[in-house]
């Protein structure tokens, strides 16, 4: 069964993909566990500020696991405190709490403007989000870590599994739908 919701379809990730607990800012009282990466190969370019892992890359971030072929980290420029970007490429798989997202590329980026803080993971290249209840495809899937929402954009295809133990009614809990025209 398929539904087409127009151009933008968003829902609370807390319902399906609890990445939020990892995305929440760490507190000073409870030091967060580190993010561990294993790979076949590591390259560091001190002049470009690049760290590149390649070959069977596996990232463990709390309960979230990411597998990919190449992971590129753009280190902070001098004076900055956070990485500029993290890009996972080649058969990217994100897994957590029984949910799984796949894509050819996942881009994490962070920026602050006078009007907004952008802190997002963008999945591109045939991205698919699968949960026990639903499968969502779109040209782009974007996880907004600030708003804690997952947005599917363009050519959205959603498949519900009525027979699943937690088959959602429509609209199912936690989901919001945006019909606003694209800007």
């Amino acid at each position: 069964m398929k539904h087409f919701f127009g151009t933008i379809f968003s829902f609370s990730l807390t319902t399906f993909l609890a990445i939020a607990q990892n995305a929440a800012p760490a507190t000073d009282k409870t030091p967060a566990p580190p993010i561990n990466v294993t790979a076949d190969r590591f390259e560091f370019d001190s002049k470009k500020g690049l760290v590149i892992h390649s070959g069977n890359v596996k990232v463990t971030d709390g309960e979230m696991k990411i597998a990919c072929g190449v992971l590129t980290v753009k280190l902070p420029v001098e004076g900055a405190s956070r990485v500029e970007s993290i890009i996972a490429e080649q058969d990217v798989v994100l897994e957590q709490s029984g949910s799984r997202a796949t894509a050819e590329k996942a881009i994490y980026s962070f920026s602050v403007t006078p009007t907004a803080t952008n802190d997002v993971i963008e999945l591109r290249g045939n991205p698919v989000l699968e949960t026990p209840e639903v499968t969502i495809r779109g040209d782009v899937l974007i996880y907004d870590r600030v708003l804690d929402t997952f947005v599917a954009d363009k050519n959205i295809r959603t498949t519900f599994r009525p027979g699943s133990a937690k088959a959602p009614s429509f609209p199912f809990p936690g989901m919001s739908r945006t019909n606003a025209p694209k800007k």
Partner: protein
Amino acid sequence: MLAQETVGGTVTDFKMPVHDTQNRLRSLVTGKSAKTVGGLTVLRLEGLRLETYGTNGALDLVAEAPECIFDIKTKTASSAGALKAEMADQRLSISGVGFEYRQDEGTLVVSNQVRTMLRRELIMPRAKP
């Protein structure tokens, strides 16, 4: 190349700094001892330590290995052995086996069994108490 002492073909306290065009120190390769193994330009270093520096002079990355081969002409350190490296602020650390460091280019490649630890503060800000 700087050396504090020479004993029978072995140099102790080997140092190879690289500066940029503005004479800022950008990297430093040191070894507790260095012994020629191929002509006069290829050395076997023991107690290797690599340091890279930012343009502001701050220490950026430190890497250490028990030993390596260092080519003075190409300023390249390489080994099939283990290496550990850490950013100066300790937010990223790495270990692996088999490496090559090109001092002029500022690139370090670790080719096997790579394990990296990223502290979360490198990725996201800490919440205000």
